[in-house]
């Protein structure tokens, strides 16, 4: 009995040594890559990012077509037979060996537009997240670090912003400002999203600033700036990374919703949301036009969520006991 107990202790001690060889970041990386679902999500996102970046090349050279060429009266060869892209009654071709995902109402290749749409969706969502992070991090740090009147002012403002019906605010902003501009959509995503991060950061800073290492740094004469940048910020990195991943997921959904409602990215620039909108009136007869952009959104957001879950588990291992699905 006692031998077993000793064995256990030695084993535990040995394991602790083994883990201590890695820095916390390396340990987190290892934990992340041991989660097959998170890795699958990351792989999908990387492939998608590559395809999106190379879209002009892939579409022109690989698929040998243009995302913007109309084929309303054109014909394509399918199985040695010339077939019209848009039939006499205005219906486009469905998925077939030439147009893998079918054509849209103007005879444009859906797959090509999907790839161009990925560029827009990802660009807008990433920059929207970046903006939200700058605003949310700034507000959260200031409120949590300086407390008192600064905290009251910032927290009350954040609370009030959270009472604004988000989607309505976004629609209002989008329809008031120059419509269809990618930059306006980015601005809206940033303005809508920062409040959540500000709350998270504030709460974390409030608890971090009471910890001994901050006290010690202050006793050593560190300036406010040094405390914020050198000591607090690195400890917030985990939360920031998780927020960023999940916020990009949220932004892809919100951008597509705005474009679907006609106040986001405007045609002819393809975005997944406005492609679904274009397909909506014809969902009974030309279902592929609305189906595939939605599948693209679904797969991308699922991947981002998988990566976000994996990151959360990897960065805060105590809080999770493994995720599946």
């Amino acid at each position: 009995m006692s031998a077993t107990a000793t064995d256990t202790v030695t084993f535990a001690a040995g394991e602790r040594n083994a883990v201590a060889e890695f820095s916390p970041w390396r340990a987190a990386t290892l934990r992340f890559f041991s989660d097959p679902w998170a890795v699958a999500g990351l792989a999908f996102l990387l492939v998608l990012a590559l395809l999106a970046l190379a879209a002009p090349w892939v579409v022109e050279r690989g698929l040998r077509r243009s995302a913007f060429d109309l084929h309303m009266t054109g014909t394509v060869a399918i199985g040695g037979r010339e077939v019209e892209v848009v039939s006499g009654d205005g219906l486009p071709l469905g998925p077939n060996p030439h147009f893998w995902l079918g054509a849209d109402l103007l005879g444009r290749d859906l797959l090509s537009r999907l790839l161009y749409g990925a560029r827009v969706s990802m660009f807008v969502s990433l920059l929207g997240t970046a903006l939200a992070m700058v605003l949310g991090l700034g507000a959260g740090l200031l409120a949590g670090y300086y407390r008192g009147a600064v905290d009251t002012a910032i927290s009350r403002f954040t609370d009030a912003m959270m009472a604004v019906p988000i989607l309505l605010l976004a629609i209002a902003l989008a329809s008031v400002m120059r419509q269809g501009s990618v930059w306006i959509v980015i601005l809206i995503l940033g303005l809508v999203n920062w409040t959540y991060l500000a709350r998270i950061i504030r709460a974390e800073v409030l608890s971090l600033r009471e910890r001994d290492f901050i006290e010690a740094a202050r006793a050593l004469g560190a300036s406010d700036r040094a405390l914020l940048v050198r000591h607090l910020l690195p400890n917030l990195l985990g939360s920031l990374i998780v927020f960023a991943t999940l916020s990009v997921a949220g932004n892809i959904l919100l951008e597509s919703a705005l474009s679907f409602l006609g106040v986001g990215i405007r045609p002819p620039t393809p975005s997944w949301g406005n492609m679904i909108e274009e397909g909506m009136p014809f969902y009974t007869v030309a279902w592929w036009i609305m189906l595939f952009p939605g599948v693209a959104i679904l797969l991308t957001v699922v991947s981002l969520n998988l990566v976000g879950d994996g990151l959360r588990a990897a960065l805060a291992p105590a809080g999770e006991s493994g995720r599946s699905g």
Partner: protein
Amino acid sequence: MTVHLLRRLGWSVLVLAFVSTLTFMIFFAIPTNPAALIAGKYASKETIAKIEKDLGLDRPKPVQLVRFLTHAAIGDWGYSYASQQPVLGAIREAFPRTLSLAFGATVVWLLLGIPLGVLSAVKPNSLWDGFAMAFALFGISAPAYWTGLVFLRVFADQLGWFPLGDYQAIGEAGVLAWAHHLVLPWITLALLYAGWYARMLRSHMLEIGRLDYVRTARAKGLSPRAVVGRHVLRNALLPIVTMLGADVAYLLGGAVLTESVYGIPGIGGLAWRAIRQRDLPMVMGTVLFAAVFIVAANVIVDLVYAWLDPRIQQEA
């Protein structure tokens, strides 16, 4: 308690004023003249000036804002520029539709989300857990308007089980027709929320399951069912109650996307159309209406919490 409540209410009024002011400012960032829109293309300058004067649009912007706020406070929400209809009347007409949608969706998502979350927390990393969490992940990742279109295509168009959109009032068409028209919208909205709730509940339950008092409960010989039901689930449901308050409140302000896909003429559609038509009184009305629910839900959740957990009262 009374002081706490009064402070919360006072703050809520300020928040509503803030939301209204923000909406007002966004709206006037565009150089359109509502009077010219009402008067039509061929109106003379005099007609436009007269309409401006009637609507108070010739006064300075801050005066207009204060006038709107004071009128709104006493229940006068003005008339739509586009349809000349009273704003409150239009909202009253649209609200039962949004309420029907939100009410049914809430029932469906609680019935789906809570059992999924509990079962996967009870058997973490099992096959069932994997299935439940995959389902939840789909729910939170699929754009609701797209799920709606897919449902319409499959269950309404192809299988013919449900009507292709449209809305039937419960008073006119009866409960059955009402529900029949709303089943797909309910499920569409519920999938999203059920996903969030199942995930939240699972992670809360796993977290609480590791706490000392749960171990004590297990150690003293309580059956697993009693431990989960009496100790874990009850505590894990607390944050869910908060979420529920906020989510239902948000939906009562209008589910723009689901309403637009299924052609339900609710608050969301009203707000969306008003924004597109630059119909200021209607925009202000619908946004304020939506904000009232959000703010009220905050106060209610606050009070429920103070009642459930006396420590919170003292902090405030």
